C-alpha cells in the first residue's frame, strides 16, 4: 500500500516537470507506433481514435458507459457499506478481527475472473452478474483498509479530549477524521481498481451490454481497432478517477502528514 501511495506522491511531486510527463506520453505513442510497424495486427493510434469517434457518433459509447457505470456504482456502494461495517467491527473487537481476518485473506487471494465466471454460471446474463462480481471483488479490499483505519484512531488522544470535555463533533473532526482519512481513501481506491477489473470481466463473460461486452464485441469481430478504442477508454477512466479525483482528495486529507 505504501508503494501505491509513494507512487502517487511521486507522480504529483512538486518536482514533477511537465516536460518529463510530455516526454513519457510521446514515448508511449512512439512505442505504440513501433508496435504497429513491427506487429502486423496492432492497429494504429489514429485508427483506434477514429473508431472511438464513430462509437460516440452511433451512441454506443455513452449508452454502454452509462449502463456499466450504473452497475459499477451499485456494486461498489454495496461493497463499501458492507465492507465498512465488517472493517469497523474488526478494528474495534479482537474477536471479530480473529474471526474475519483469515476469511478475508482467502477472499483477497481469489482472482476477479473466478467471481466473474461463477456469477455468470449462477445468475446468467443479467444485471446481477456484473453487480455481484463488482461487490465481491471490491469487498475484501474495503474490509482490510477500513479495519486499518479504525485501528489508526489514536485512543489516548480521544480519551484526553474527553477528559478535557472537548465536544464530540470537534473530536470527530480534529482527531478521528485526520487519522482515518488515509486508509479510508486507500479503501476506496483499491476497491475501485479491483471492482473495475471485475466489472470488465463480468461483462465480458456474462452480459449483453456494457463496456466489457462492447470490447468483446469488437474482439469477437476480429476488429482490434475497436477493442483498442475501448481499452483507451478504460485507461482514461482510470487516470481520471485515480490521478485527477482521488489523488487531490488524498493529498488534501493527508496534508497534515507532510507538514
Amino acid at each position, binding site marked *: 500500500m505504501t*508503494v501505491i501511495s*509513494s*507512487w502517487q506522491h*511521486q*507522480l504529483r*511531486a512538486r*518536482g*514533477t*516537470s511537465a516536460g*518529463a*510527463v510530455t*516526454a*513519457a*506520453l510521446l514515448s*508511449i505513442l512512439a512505442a505504440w507506433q513501433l508496435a504497429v510497424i513491427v*506487429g502486423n*495486427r496492432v492497429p494504429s493510434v489514429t485508427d483506434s481514435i477514429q473508431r472511438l469517434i464513430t462509437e460516440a457518433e452511433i451512441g454506443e459509447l455513452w449508452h454502454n458507459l452509462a449502463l456499466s457505470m450504473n452497475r459499477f456504482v451499485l456494486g461498489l456502494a454495496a461493497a463499501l457499506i458492507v465492507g465498512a461495517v465488517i472493517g469497523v467491527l474488526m478494528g*474495534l473487537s*479482537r*474477536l471479530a*478481527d*480473529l*474471526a*474475519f*481476518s483469515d*476469511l478475508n485473506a*482467502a477472499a*483477497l*487471494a*481469489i*482472482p*476477479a*475472473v*473466478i467471481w466473474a*465466471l*461463477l456469477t*455468470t*454460471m*449462477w445468475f446468467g446474463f443479467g444485471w446481477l452478474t456484473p453487480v455481484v462480481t463488482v461487490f465481491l471483488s471490491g469487498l475484501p479490499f474495503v474490509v482490510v483498509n477500513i479495519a486499518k483505519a479504525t*485501528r489508526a*484512531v489514536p*485512543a489516548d488522544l*480521544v*480519551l484526553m479530549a*474527553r477528559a478535557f470535555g472537548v465536544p464530540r463533533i470537534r473530536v470527530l473532526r480534529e482527531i478521528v477524521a485526520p487519522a482515518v482519512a488515509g486508509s479510508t481513501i486507500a479503501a476506496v481506491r483499491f476497491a475501485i481498481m479491483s471492482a*473495475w*477489473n471485475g466489472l*470488465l*470481466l463480468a461483462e*465480458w*463473460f456474462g452480459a449483453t451490454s456494457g463496456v*466489457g461486452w462492447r470490447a468483446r464485441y469488437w474482439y469477437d469481430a476480429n476488429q*482490434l481497432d475497436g*477493442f483498442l478504442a475501448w*481499452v483507451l477508454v*478504460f485507461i482514461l477512466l*482510470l*487516470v481520471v478517477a*485515480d*490521478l485527477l479525483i482521488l489523488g487531490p482528495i488524498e493529498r488534501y486529507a493527508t496534508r497534515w502528514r507532510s507538514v
Partner: protein
Amino acid sequence: MTQTVALPDTGSVAANPPSRRRSRGPVRHNRWLVSGSALVLALAAWAALAAWVDDPILPTPVGVGEQVYAIVVSGEAVANFATSIAKIAAGFALAMAGGLVIGFAMGRSRFLNAYFSLPLFVLGNMPGLTYAVFGLLIFGVGAGGPIVVSALVALPFIAMNVAEGVRSVDGNLLAMCQAFERRRSDILRHLYLPALTTFVFAGVRYGFAMAWKVEALTEVFGASSGVGFMIRKAYQEFRVDDMLAWTALFIIAMVLIERGLAALENRFFAWRKEIA
C-alpha cells in the same frame, strides 16, 4: 466508547510488550479457536445454502472437498500449478532485470523518476482483461503470453520499490566511499545491496499477488495448460464444483507461497532487528 476505542491496542501487542504481557497469553490461546470456528461457521452457512438450493449449480462443501481430493490424487493439481508457477517465475526474472535498471535510474535522477511514473502507473493499473487479450493476440496460446504478462504486471512494483531503496541509501556513506576511493563493485555490494533487498522483497511480495491473478486470467483466455486453463475448462463444462475446487486450491497455494515468502524475509533480515 472508552472500552471500544481502547480495545484495538491489544491488537498491537508488539508495540508495547511490557504493559500488555498479561493479556498476551489468553489472546494467543484463543486465536486458532476463534478463526477456526469462524471458518467452520462459514462452511456451515455454505452447506445450509447448498442444501436449500439443492442443485448442482451450488455444490455442497463435501462435494467440493471430494473434487479437490480427486484433483490432487490424479496429479493434475501439482502438474498445473507447477506450469503456472514456472511461467510466473520466468516472468518475475524478466521483471526483476527490468525493474532493477528502471528503479535504479528513477532513484538517481529526478527527471527519469517523473518520466517513468506515468508509464509505470498505467502498467500497474491497467485492467487484467487488457493484458490477457493482448497476451493472447500477440503470443497465441503458448507460454510466452503468460510470461510477458506477469513480467509487465510485476515490473512497476519492483521498479518503484527499487527506486525507493536507492533513495534510502545514506548520502553521507556514499560521499565517504568516494573520499576513500572504494571500488564501484564494493559500493554496490556493501551499500546498495543491503539497502535494496528489503525494498525488493516488499515489491516481490505485492507484485507476486498481482502477477499471479493476471497470469491465471491470461491462461483463462488462452493457454493449453496451467491453473487458468483448468478454470476455463470447468467453466466450459459448466462444472461449478470443479471451479470451486480449483478456487480452493488456488487460495491454498497463494497462502502457502505468501507464508513462504514471509518466512524467507524473516530469515533474510534476522540481522536487522528493527525490520523483523
